[in-house]
């Protein structure tokens, strides 16, 4: 930022002069419209997130290339050993690896918040008379779009590789929807860390420390029955296991109501706990 603040005189000299008469007219003419509601401001912040994607499309790398890499790697690496062939394994793996990628990219929400909070624009948002959480909800709405893109990319690659979901279009869409709802809720953990931790690197470090056990110690890669008892105890109660079982079930054409209920329950708990904590930190920042 400092490099650009040191303006070149030449550039400034070329600037058109400020029209004080136009300015005066504008100042007089402005009447403050009624205060917008929470939904309007949240959607406006969501629009901001979209604009950021539009201006910096490279940031979509993590929702395109990374998930493709994961599908290819794990399918061909473990496929033969675990299920006899990659083609058979992908029927089991794809819903899980989809869950894993999307849950993993939720951590970028924390990074974005952490990077943004250092900038002056946050001061402006915080000094506006609006529903306080809408700034953060806006991030999450933008991220929901990213999750959708990641899901679409992975499903496409999966279909090319031979994934044939019995649940059909409806089952797949229901699975993706459940995944996005859970990820939206889970992101509040990262907004908290984004506000709590001082540097981008520490946000990254903490995210990884939580995400690796959470995603690997689940039923994403192998069935829990193959694990030792103490590990099964963790895996069976891991929210990611509930989520991937639910998504797998939905895509497979069944209706795993218990797993869906567990997933939504966890989502509710995450928002109820981390939402208020995040807002407390946001207000104090």
């Amino acid at each position, binding site marked *: 930022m400092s490099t650009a603040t040191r303006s070149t005189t030449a550039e400034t000299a070329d600037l058109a002069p400020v029209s004080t008469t*136009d300015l005066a007219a504008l100042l007089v003419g402005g009447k403050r419209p009624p205060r917008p509601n929470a939904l309007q401001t949240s959607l406006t912040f969501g629009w901001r997130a979209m604009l950021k994607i539009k201006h910096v499309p490279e940031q979509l790398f993590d929702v395109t290339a990374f998930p493709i890499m994961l599908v290819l790697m794990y399918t061909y690496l473990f496929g033969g050993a675990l299920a006899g062939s990659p083609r058979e394994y992908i029927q089991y793996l794809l819903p899980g690896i989809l869950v894993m990628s999307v849950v993993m990219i939720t951590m970028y929400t924390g990074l974005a918040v952490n990077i943004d909070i250092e900038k002056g624009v946050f001061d402006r948002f915080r000094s506006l008379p609006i529903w306080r959480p809408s700034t953060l909800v806006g991030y999450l709405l933008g991220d929901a779009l990213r999750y959708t893109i990641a899901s679409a990319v992975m499903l496409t690659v999966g279909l090319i590789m031979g994934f044939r979901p019995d649940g059909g279009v409806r089952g797949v869409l229901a699975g993706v929807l459940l995944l996005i709802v859970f990820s939206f809720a889970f992101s509040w953990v990262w907004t908290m860390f984004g506000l709590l931790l001082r540097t981008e690197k520490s946000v990254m470090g903490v995210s990884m420390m939580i995400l690796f056990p959470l995603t690997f110690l689940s039923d994403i890669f192998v069935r829990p029955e193959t694990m030792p008892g103490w590990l099964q105890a963790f895996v069976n109660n891991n929210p990611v296991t509930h989520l991937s079982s639910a998504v797998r079930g939905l895509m497979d054409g069944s209706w795993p109501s218990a797993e869906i209920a567990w997933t939504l329950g966890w989502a509710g708990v995450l928002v109820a706990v981390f939402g208020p904590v995040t807002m407390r930190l946001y207000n104090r920042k």
Partner: protein
Amino acid sequence: MTSSNRTGPWAGPAIETAGLVKTFGDTRAVDGVDLRIEAGTVYGLLGPNGAGKTTTVRMLATLLRPDGGEARVFGHDVVREADAVRSRVSLTGQYASVDEDLTGTENLVLLARLTGHAKKDSYDRAAQLLDAFGLSEAAGRQVKNYSGGMRRRIDIAASILNTPELLFLDEPTTGLDPRSRNQVWEIVRAVVAQGTTVLLTTQYLDEADQLASRIAVIDRGRVIAEGTKGELKASVGAGSVHVRLRDADRRPDAERLLRGVLDAEIQLEPDPVALTARVGNGNGNGNGTRNGKDAAKKASRALAELARAGITVDNFSLGQPSLDEVFLALTGKSDHQQPDHQQPDHPRSGDPRPGDPRPVSDLPHPKEATA
């Protein structure tokens, strides 16, 4: 709670604080600040880096919670009635308070939407503002590609998108070249002319001199002086005699001679041919006029004595004290001699950026008062 009387007249002061305190760890960044700022005026908070200016502004703008004391903006408590305060104020921070990834238009539309303007209305307002600020050509460019002067403009444009009743300008010209500074000052004057109250923080004395009608000098979290520009200057003394000699070798002679005639301490400037003497040592007892007459008499005698001693004088002037001198007298130190002992003004603001013009010490002498 009070949004109904938003447009209603408020007879009291725009800002009133009592014993405002903010601590960061062990340091008291703001240490009992009392302010009263009348509506419709420009008020300058003047002080060096780390004096507590930004922290004070951030508390008044509801961004920081005070640790002690009270602050009211148009009668609304900044903690208990934060939303009522927020709907009346705008903040232009030390750092550009716009989203650098977005274009100029997008930034303004975003803020217009957030303050309840309809979509079309938002784009109209953005276009009008960009036009008035001479930024139409840059409207579609990302703000990160703007020059320093353009950033300030878009920043201020964002602040007056809805004409605020109170505008905080936190070091609005830090890091700008002189031309852009003048343009920012023009904008501020235009905003004030429409009735907006402005609280300006600055470390540049000439900026406070140019824009503010009342000034509080703040140092180490405390207000150490407050008043109109004239009052502050009068509290220091009637004025200063500034002498520039033709020949640097004669300066010791001139110094001796002036000390005798003026009966004042003589300050040797960094420039080897320049001297400054403060005359009519006032003690703030309101005898400014008499002191002023004395000073003029003494100064003319000094000039005559210099001529008689055969010391060629290139330039001789008697001016009211500059705010620099006020500052020196109040703090016992000139801003440019200040050691780096103070805490940052702001939790995340570090040292002054290298591109910033040097404050205070570079001001031309003597500075005639414009009050």
